[in-house]
């Protein structure tokens, strides 16, 4: 497929997504479930892609994403709660004098949120990245818990407001904000993965010893991937804080990391497209499509058994087990979305169907029709 065609296709796709979102937006009266799921899905997509950068592309199995999100969310919250309402938020413990008047506009605060998360990644990176596979996972998991507990601990009450958490964090100014920010960040990650540095990350995933023998500085490149991943997790945390409007230490339990890991696994480890698709699917299933399982239901006079509060998670877990057992490579495996891939898919589809439809095989014509049909 020609480059020009691809660009046109991409622009059309972007326009279509925009129009769809616009339709959702104008039909959004009050609390539409669809709008909520889409926004949350976009936020999770960013965090999942950031985790995939580390787990899927660099081969470092990290479980610290929730910790970095918490760092981002709290940094963002502290810097953006309107100064006049800070007395109300910190009514119990008071607020640290330095922070009382420290306020930044939303975009800047978001970048600072990412930078704080990245800074902590830099701090713990040197010791933690020396560990291999499982031990690295345990260490990052521990870090994530330490962050959560520190945030809720009393010595930091005047900074993080302890277990009361932060409230009145400004929300999204427009329905499109999370999509734009998340989309832009994912685009940056995709560009990174396609660069020479991205290739080196993949080399480290494939074979550390060979990568090092090819002149790739392992510690430097691992550190890089870790910091970048944390930076975007921090921005994801900030987006989540905006979405929720309030954060407490319990917003970022270990379970959050597992949720994101699930998205990565279901989407396919090593596929950005997979992570994005899976994050919308998983969020929709969890928050929306499986909701009916939580309510007791009657079909005629028959009381459907098992359906009660919490059953949704049981079914969700079952679905996950099925995915992990039978679709181990996830939705996308390690493939990515590409127009060439789509074209090839349609061509195969046409080739398979044509003889069945016409009863005659026209190999040459088939090829052409298949191609034309898409382009």
């Amino acid at each position: 497929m020609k480059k020009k065609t691809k660009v046109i296709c991409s622009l059309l796709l972007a326009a279509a997504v925009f129009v769809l979102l616009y339709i959702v937006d104008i039909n959004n009266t009050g609390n539409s479930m669809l709008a909520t799921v889409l926004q949350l899905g976009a936020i999770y997509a960013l965090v999942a892609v950031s985790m995939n950068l580390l787990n899927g592309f660099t081969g470092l199995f990290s479980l610290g994403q929730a910790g970095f999100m918490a760092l981002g969310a709290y940094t963002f919250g502290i810097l953006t709660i309107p100064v006049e309402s800070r007395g109300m938020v910190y009514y119990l413990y008071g607020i640290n004098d330095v922070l009382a008047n420290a306020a930044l506009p939303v975009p800047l605060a978001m970048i600072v949120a990412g930078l704080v998360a990245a800074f902590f990644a830099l701090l713990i990176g040197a010791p933690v990245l020396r560990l291999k596979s499982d031990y690295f996972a345990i260490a990052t998991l521990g870090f994530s818990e330490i962050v959560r507990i520190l945030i809720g601990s009393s010595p930091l009450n005047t900074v993080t407001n302890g277990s009361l958490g932060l409230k009145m964090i400004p929300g999204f100014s427009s329905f499109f904000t999370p999509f734009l920010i998340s989309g832009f960040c994912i685009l940056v990650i995709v560009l990174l993965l396609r660069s020479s540095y991205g290739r080196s990350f993949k080399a480290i995933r494939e074979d550390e010893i060979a990568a090092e023998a090819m002149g790739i500085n392992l510690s430097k490149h691992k550190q890089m991937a870790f910091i970048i991943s944390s930076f975007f997790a921090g921005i994801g945390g900030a987006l989540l804080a905006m979405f929720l409007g309030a954060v407490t230490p319990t917003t970022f339990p270990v379970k959050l990391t597992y949720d994101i890991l699930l998205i990565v696994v279901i989407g396919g480890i090593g596929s950005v497209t997979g992570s994005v698709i899976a994050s919308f699917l998983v969020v929709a299933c969890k928050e929306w499509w499986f909701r009916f399982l939580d309510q007791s239901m009657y079909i005629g006079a028959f009381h459907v058994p098992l359906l009660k509060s919490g059953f949704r998670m049981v079914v969700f877990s079952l679905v996950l087990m099925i995915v992990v057992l039978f679709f181990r490579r996830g939705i996308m495996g390690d493939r990515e979305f590409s127009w060439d891939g789509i074209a090839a898919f349609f061509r195969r589809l046409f080739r398979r169907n044509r003889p069945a439809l016409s009863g005659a095989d026209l190999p040459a014509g088939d090829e052409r029709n298949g191609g034309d049909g898409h382009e």
Partner: protein
Amino acid sequence: MSKTVLAINDVTMQFGGVVAVNDLSMHIDEGEIVALIGPNGAGKTTAFNVITGVYQPTNGEVILDGKTIAAGHPTGKIKKIYAGGHNGEYTKSVKNTPDKITKLGIARTFQNIRLFKNLTVLENVLIAKHMRMKANLFTDTFMLSHKEEKRMREDSLELLRIVDLYDVRGEIASSLPYGKQRHLEIARALATEPKLLLLDEPAAGMNPQETDELTAFIKRIRDDFKLTVFMIEHHMNLVMDISDRIYVIDFGKQIAEGTPAEIQNDRRVIDAYLGVAEDE
């Protein structure tokens, strides 16, 4: 008189009580093809690992183009149980990680092929070019250095053309036949622009025809890339055919050095390595 590219002086590598390489000294001159042979477990690969920075030598030094790239002397626990020679002669301690050694101009291949299996042939070569890149993370991500990237691609494709892998450049590395994978591993090592190429059993698992091809291939790249080649090999045909000089080691110790003809008639080598003297 050609100049020495690599000099290994009195290198001993001891792991606990096991002396894997014992008091080894070698020199490799510019443009030579030198082979290192010896029975299984003689310490050949350990010697390679010392040269490429995987291990720091327990004692002795490794010099590349007059620059010490690795050196060590017994310290700590090993000091009491040190069993090698030249104790106390070396006082320097130089440690370079493998990536730095590669940057200094030594590239290697592995005994068991270590390609980036799920990446394409072209990507495998591009990765080896990464370390010579000037662009930083930022300019590279936002494609501000696309000229350099383009040049990298052209260079890599050119290299693939030379080593006859151009036609399979888009294939996944693990899908190549065995012989081609070996070639690719050598091509990848060449992409790091080395002065010295270390080949660890390049002909392992190859049939005679593939081995002959490899012999021609190694000679060709030596001339085309003005390389010096140092190789470990078990295929005697290949070794005798290709080498300018041969080092023989057994139990970590050097037992002979010389041209292929000399080695073939060396009593100690026949006794220790070929083991055909028993029935005489």
